[in-house]
């Protein structure tokens, strides 16, 4: 239900002041609304614009005019990053994101299938168990996971992040996929059942091929979470060579506090992937984020 509602392009409600309305409501609300919208846009964007402009300035230019447009545009801040460890952080983040997004999607598909297509009373408590995970503060699991990672001798390795990242993304992923699987028309299953296909074949040949939208939704929201995650990485990693981007940026911030344009370039590069994903697949991102909140209603 959710994805159907969310996927529709915004057409829903009419603006309040329609031309056939009686007097009273004058034209000014439209102008007022535009002014409010523009102020909100400026407030939303000014730190972001400050970051973009700063990343294109030379250090002297920044110190003279922290707020103005760059006098001459330089890309040296970006090229300089890769002589620092930035490339390494970026690579670590990509590896972590690739493994955890794949892991979350595969495990969530396997779990959502029985929860949506089997008829058993156990489904409701199982679903509630997964949904309860959305409410668990990360900090409640931090110390036990830190201890567990040490016991498994995985401390200070990228692999230490895979388990916690997948576990914390499973609840929403299972929920989104299960609600999608439930809406798949019965007719699609009947043919496969007549052929005597087992669950495994039904999942592979019927469910997964039509579930593309839901799967990409899950993949994108998992990616955004994993790409920006900070606290598990802070606790489970210690050497800089293993840092993902958020930790790397934090380390940069300590070392590069004099080189503000360099810092801004790092922040810009770290932000670009999430924004690109949003631009490429906005409806998927939106439906994914909304899915958790609009559930059942």
């Amino acid at each position: 239900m959710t994805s159907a509602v969310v996927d529709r392009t915004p057409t829903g409600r009419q603006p309040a002041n329609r031309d056939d309305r009686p007097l009273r409501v004058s034209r000014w609300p439209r102008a007022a609304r535009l002014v409010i919208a523009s102020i909100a846009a400026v407030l939303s964007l000014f730190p972001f614009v400050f970051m973009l402009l700063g990343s294109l300035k030379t250090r002297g230019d920044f110190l003279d005019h922290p707020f103005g447009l760059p006098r001459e545009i330089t890309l040296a801040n970006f090229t300089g990053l890769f002589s620092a460890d930035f490339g390494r952080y970026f690579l670590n983040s990509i590896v972590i994101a690739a493994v955890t997004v794949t892991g979350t999607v595969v495990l969530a598909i396997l779990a959502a299938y029985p929860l949506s297509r089997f008829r058993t009373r156990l489904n409701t408590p199982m679903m509630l168990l997964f949904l309860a995970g959305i409410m668990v503060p990360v900090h409640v699991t931090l110390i036990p996971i830190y201890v567990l990672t040490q016991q498994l001798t995985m401390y200070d390795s990228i692999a230490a992040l895979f388990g916690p990242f997948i576990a914390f993304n499973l609840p929403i992923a299972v929920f989104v996929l299960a609600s999608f699987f439930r809406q798949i028309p019965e007719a699609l299953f009947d043919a496969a059942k007549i052929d005597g296909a087992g669950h495994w074949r039904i999942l592979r040949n019927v469910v997964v091929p039509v579930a593309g939208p839901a799967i990409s939704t899950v993949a994108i929201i998992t990616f955004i979470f994993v790409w920006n995650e900070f606290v598990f990485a802070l606790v489970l990693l210690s050497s800089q060579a293993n840092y993902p981007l958020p930790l790397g940026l934090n380390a940069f911030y300590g070392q590069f506090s004099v080189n503000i344009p360099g810092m801004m370039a790092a922040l810009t590069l770290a932000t670009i992937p999430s924004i690109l994903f949003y631009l490429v697949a906005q409806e998927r991102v939106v439906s994914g984020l909304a899915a958790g909140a609009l559930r059942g209603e």
Partner: protein
Amino acid sequence: MIRSERLKWAAFLAPALAVYAVFLIYPVVQSGVLSFSSWAGPGRPSIPVGLDNYRELFGDPIFWRALRNTVVLLVVSVFVQLPIGLGLALIVTSARRARRLWRGVFFIPTLMSTVAVAILWRFVYSPDYGIINGFLRGVGLEDLAQGWLGQTSTALFAVIGANVWQWAPFYMIIYVAALVGLDPEVYEAAALDGADGWQKFWHITLPLLRPVLFTTAILSLAGSIKAFDLVYIMTDGGPSNSTELLATYMFRQGFTNYRLGYASTIAMVMFLITFVLTVVVLLRSNRREAVEKARG
């Protein structure tokens, strides 16, 4: 369900459930166990201390400070951040053109990494190069320019401001999805009755959004109890604990002071608060719906 089917059901669920159990369920239980012990980390003995940690916690002024600050954050999140999110959503849905553009522009803060947001807002608040002080000096209000994050009187609200900036657009996205799903016929009927924009908002939009308002309230209070990254990077709880939150205090006790038992006690308090608040809000929303159903 026949037994072989039940086995297959379990087999499909097993991998996800295993990861979930090891990295989410077990740690929550283990935190509960650790909260009754005194432990300085792996390799050291863990000493059972009964309720001592809880007793110490309730007499710990920094804990109360952290709790108070967390409550302030929570109240601002629910009563300021959510209305801002709803306001942004109304701007987006009532735009005649380029709704996606407006939505994208407003959504950028949530898409940014929290670390990037925290570092950027340190620049915003910086005494010398800060955007805010630059603005104040530019309009002739030099006297108001100050070190926003460096003094106890302003640091908490400065940090909360950055948090609202980052997360209000997240709730906007949810509200936009909900608003777009509302039935336009209801509004047409109201327009025929001569309702103006404000009346429509108050008597139609808000009641229809009520279920979503409750869920976002739950998400927002859960979010404020686990808030950490932004404060950790911007102020690390300082100056003199004025921005200390439950999560930053738990982290300090656990990973700076290596008091894993005591830190687990703080974590359990966070867990219990989230749990109780969620149940309260859920019960409230269910009761309201029940009352309305009874009324017809």
